């Protein structure tokens, strides 16, 4: 941080809020004003060394509720939108707006379901496998993701695919489908697996375990995710229907984000939990999630009571391996093991959705964390 400014505003606290004193920019635009959590205004930087920008002002607005976007676009107040998790309804509402285009790109974020293996039923591999086989991930894609792609181009619907690797995303070269047969939708086989785990089908359509705390009662599990996110709610509801078909009763029990990620998750107060991980080019970041939970110093993000020494040793190998090719194959082996152990169930990638006005040129969506403003200096109003 620039020393001459730090002197004036104080090094510790001076940079916590934006103000005229901390206005510094080395790029084509500089920040004119910023209201935390509300809006940010950029204007051209007069001291920029490069070519002059075409726009006199860019305003970033933080809109709380995605459903407010469509009327704002129709009325001309907003020119570019980028929802965090687009829903089908959202994409539909934007589709019909004239002079407005949309682009949907595969991203690096993916939804998944975790199994808490401290639950006596989920501790059994057969039960976890049954749940995986009973989940109709294609149906989820078809109803939650594919229609978003279709709003741009009906032919694009096929771009929405199930995710079969936890460490690499389909757009990354090392991606491989490491799932084998563990994840093909097969409710009949799922029921058989449940029976082999010691359950019998009850008269009400739900399985009844012959052991454990639910002995003689309906086999039920709870699933939790962040409340107030429609897409996650939809995933849970489809999942619930899938599980009902194989005889498992699912209770939906959601929490707000800070409770879910602050207490419920880390303390393992869940049976099934659904949320998203963000992948990165650096696969080593996955270690804290999947290495043995007993190793509390390293594996802090393993909330599932999962442990597999083979996975641990492979991670250690991969971390010290600097060769990208052998590295990738090690990680894929890890993922293959994760499938065999059915540690977690990846569902699908979150699509990255950008809507932008066709009145401007050079708007090029970018699914990485930089986002669409990556080439803001080239944006211009079409003549």
């Amino acid at each position, binding site marked *: 941080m620039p020393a001459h400014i730090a002197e004036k505003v104080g090094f510790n606290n001076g940079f916590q809020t934006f103000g005229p004193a901390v206005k510094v920019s080395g790029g084509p635009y500089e920040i004119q004003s910023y209201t935390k959590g509300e809006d940010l205004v950029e204007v051209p930087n007069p001291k920029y060394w490069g070519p002059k920008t075409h726009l006199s002002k860019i305003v970033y607005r933080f809109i*709380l509720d995605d459903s407010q976007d469509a009327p704002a676009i*129709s*009325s001309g107040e907003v020119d570019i939108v980028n929802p965090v998790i687009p829903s089908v309804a959202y994409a539909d509402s934007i589709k019909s707006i*004239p002079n407005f285009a949309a682009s949907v790109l595969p991203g690096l974020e993916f939804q998944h379901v975790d199994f808490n293996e401290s639950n006596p039923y989920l501790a059994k591999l057969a039960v976890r496998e049954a749940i995986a086989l009973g989940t109709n991930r294609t149906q989820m894609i078809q109803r939650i993701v594919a229609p978003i792609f279709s709003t741009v181009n009906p032919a694009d619907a096929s771009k929405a695919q199930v995710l079969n690797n936890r460490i690499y995303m389909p757009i990354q070269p090392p991606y491989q489908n490491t799932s084998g047969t563990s994840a093909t939708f097969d409710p009949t086989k799922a029921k058989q697996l449940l029976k082999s785990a010691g359950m019998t089908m009850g008269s009400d359509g739900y399985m009844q375990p012959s052991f454990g705390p639910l002995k003689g009662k309906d086999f039920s599990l709870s699933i939790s995710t962040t409340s107030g996110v429609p897409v996650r709610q939809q995933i849970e509801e489809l999942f619930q229907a899938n599980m009902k078909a194989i005889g498992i009763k699912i209770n939906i029990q959601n929490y*707000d984000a*800070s409770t879910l990620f*602050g207490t419920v998750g880390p303390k393992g107060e869940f049976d099934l939990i659904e949320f998203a991980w963000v992948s990165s080019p650096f696969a080593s970041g996955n270690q804290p999630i999947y290495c043995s939970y007993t190793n509390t110093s390293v594996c802090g993000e393993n909330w599932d009571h999962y442990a597999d020494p083979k996975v641990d040793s492979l991670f250690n190998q991969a971390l010290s391996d600097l060769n990208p090719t052998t590295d990738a194959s090690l990680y894929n082996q890890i993922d293959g093991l994760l499938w065999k152990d059915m540690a977690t169930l990846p569902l699908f990638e979150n699509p990255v959705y950008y809507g932008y006005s066709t009145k401007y040129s050079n708007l090029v969506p970018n699914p990485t964390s930089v986002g669409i403003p990556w080439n803001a200096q080239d944006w211009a109003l079409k003549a």
Partner: protein
Amino acid sequence: MGAYILRRLGAGILVMAVATFLLYLLVSVSGNPLANLMANPHISPATIRAARIELHLNEPLLQRYWTWITGVVHGDFGISTTGQAVGPQVLPRMWVTLQMVLPATAIAIVLGIGLGVMSAVRQYSILDHVSTALAYILFATPVFVIAILLKDFLAVKVDTAAGHPILYTIGQNNPGTTGAWSVFVDALAHDVLPVLTLVLITYAGWSRYQRASLLDVQNSDYIRLARAKGLSRRRVLYVHALRNALIPVTTVIALDFAGLLGGALITEIVYGWEGMGRFFYEGLVGPVTPDVNVVMSYLVVTAALVIAFNIIADIAYGLLDPRIRYA
């Protein structure tokens, strides 16, 4: 009169103290602001401890409340969980909220009383029936439904026909506008829909009450006597009846003001205004919850507004009703 106001203020402050205490307790126990930090394994325990101290979470609840209330009395609203001081944010946000609330209150009062009087004077006419029906329907519609309908059917249609935004649906202004006139016009364009929404949910009740009150007065003996004495209908109405009929409505409006602020909260959220209401909502529900100091700042400001407004209404009441003399 002065002593009466002081007494009311005193009572109001007492009520505020108790209310803030109860709400402080409720908000503080509803979550852990450190949860996000704790969930991230890359953050060291030392950082979490430092954050805990900075947010005073290591102190017992009562002590935290005491720190907060003594701070407020000095004008210091504390620090939000993001590290920013809450106090300096309150005034600008208050100004934004008032940009919606003040015009809406004024318009709703004029519209409510005006329509109420007209309906009473022309009882059972078309005007009366139409405004009755409208009032009933507006009572029965949630405020966010009205906002959505206004956005989709008024704003979008007008703006698409015009080709550029006239009625805005997001925010209270276009940030970065310069020039006093431009800023004013810009603010006005952003004001229309939210103020309209607030007015629609507020005026109907007042107009019904005013109508009923005026009808009641018109049927009373002293009005009949005035007419019998030969005074014109107009004179009787405006000089004698109306003044008395305004009295109950004044109380209604005063007591409704808190409700209007509640409606303003929802309206702010629906239209994306950066006012106190949204400040409160984000502090309560937002990414890092609960942000006690932010939530409490909203409560203090709102309660103060309601108490102030009620005192003003009482004074108006005293002016209107000659039988009331404040000892």
